[in-house]
């Protein structure tokens, strides 16, 4: 296999990982919530796409997919908001507790999907303009993968602009860093937290929508992404977007390279061990947040 193919495959895998992890980079990386239900939010996005397809495809044809990106975002965001208001809100600053509670939530959401859509997988028909692939320099690049790379760049840009170049983003970061003080500056921290969490969840929804292009849509869909997405965020360094980007790139490309030389199982285990080893050198991830304070 030539190097360009490996590179493209790695890049493609990275983009998928990043898309799946982007929401987590916000809810976990910035807000400190270990959201074990993140995978289930991805699932919500995927099922939303399925439902939207059923309703809109007859009318809009392939165009339904663009609606479903938006609606997946909104649906997952709505779930996120609901979760924030009922559960997460009480758990800020208690990361382990957030982990346990969201684990419970993930069980409930999985079962909910089973109750509503049945246990078997459902199918989403990808828009026809994304079928097939482009061959460039001898590398066959499927349009779906190119589309996902584009989508993740777009999401990144939006999130980055939002967090670092809007008032809301600044308020978000303030709340995350010191909730009480933010309130004392007139910031409605509860609302901000809620919206931020909804944003992170919504991004998971977009990931779910995009993943219908490549993978299955079923109640356990989210479980496949839990370890990978957390690794991406942790490897990059919690709290840094640039960290998550490089985390995804490293894991994606390393997985692909290993897989070329060995098997998928070995590659998977090897990458995990590699990340674990790497963290020994850089315990706070690639892009650590430095801080002078004790603890």
């Amino acid at each position: 296999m030539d190097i360009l193919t490996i590179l493209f495959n790695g890049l493609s895998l990275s983009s998928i990982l990043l898309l799946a992890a982007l929401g987590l980079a916000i809810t976990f990386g910035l807000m400190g919530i270990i959201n074990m239900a993140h995978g289930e939010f991805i699932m919500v996005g995927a099922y939303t796409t399925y439902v939207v397809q059923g309703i809109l495809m007859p009318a809009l044809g392939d165009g339904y997919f663009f609606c479903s990106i938006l609606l997946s975002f909104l649906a997952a965001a709505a779930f996120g908001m609901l979760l924030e208001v009922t559960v997460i809100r009480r758990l800020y600053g208690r990361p382990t507790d957030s982990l346990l509670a969201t684990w419970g939530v993930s069980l409930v959401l999985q079962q909910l999907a089973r109750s509503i859509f049945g246990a078997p997988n459902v199918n989403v028909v990808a828009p026809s303009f994304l079928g097939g692939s482009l061959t460039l320099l001898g590398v066959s690049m499927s349009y779906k993968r190119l589309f996902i790379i584009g989508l993740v760049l777009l999401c990144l840009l939006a999130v980055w602009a939002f967090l670092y170049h809007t008032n809301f983003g600044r308020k978000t970061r303030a709340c995350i860093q010191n909730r009480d003080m933010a309130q004392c500056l007139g910031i409605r921290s509860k609302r901000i937290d809620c919206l931020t969490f909804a944003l992170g969840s919504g991004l998971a929804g977009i990931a779910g929508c995009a993943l219908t292009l490549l993978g299955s849509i079923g109640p356990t869909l989210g479980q496949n992404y839990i370890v990978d997405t957390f690794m991406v965020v942790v490897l990059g360094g919690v709290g840094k977007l640039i960290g998550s980007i490089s985390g995804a790139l490293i894991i994606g490309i390393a997985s692909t390279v290993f897989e070329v030389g060995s098997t998928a199982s070995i590659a998977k285990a090897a990458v995990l061990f590699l990340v674990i080893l790497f963290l020994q050198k850089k315990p706070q991830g690639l892009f650590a947040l430095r801080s002078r304070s004790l603890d």
Partner: protein
Amino acid sequence: MLEIKGLRSYYGESEILHGIDLAVPDGKIVALVGRNGVGKTTTLKSVMGLVKAPEGDVFLDGVSLRRMPPYERARQGIGYVPQGRDIFPQMTVAENLRLGLEVCGGRKQDAEELYELFPIVKKFLARKGGDLSGGQQQQLAIARALIARPKLLLLDEPTEGIQPSVIQEIGDAIRTINQKTGISILLVEQYLDFALELADDCYVMDKGRVVFHGATGSSGKEEIQQYMLAS
């Protein structure tokens, strides 16, 4: 301006303030002093709504703050400089300042005046708040509270950890601001001389109660000092 009436505050089950009465008249600087652990910080936090205070009430310009969450209170025009500064450590100095403007909707406002008062803040605009030295953070915290031009400023030990020359500057700054803008100030201080020199009025606290209230004239000063030593 600010009126505290019969305020009782709790941390969990334990009552810390046993009925505080205190008033900050319009445009005046009022000092609140007392030994360690008597509840000064708790009083300020109660005004901001950060601790449980089921009994008593706080009025700002006659409006009861009782049912308001902290951010509402801030929007009523209270600026707060907490003990320990509470700078946002991962944000730049500039961003910390911008956040000070949230109270009035995040509109940009001229900060030149503040830069004059605290040149250090301007010098380090691009540095992360958490990397500043203790004293630098303190100055940033005051600047952050002032930037939105509040009606009432709550200062919790603003001289803690500040170099002597800057203490004087802070003192001057407080006085200047007070005179120029008519802002009212409630100042908690351990550094008695500093407090008494600035304040028009002084309250002494002990064990969750106000034990003395008087003006800071030369006669008052001695009396206050006595209370401080005796309590």
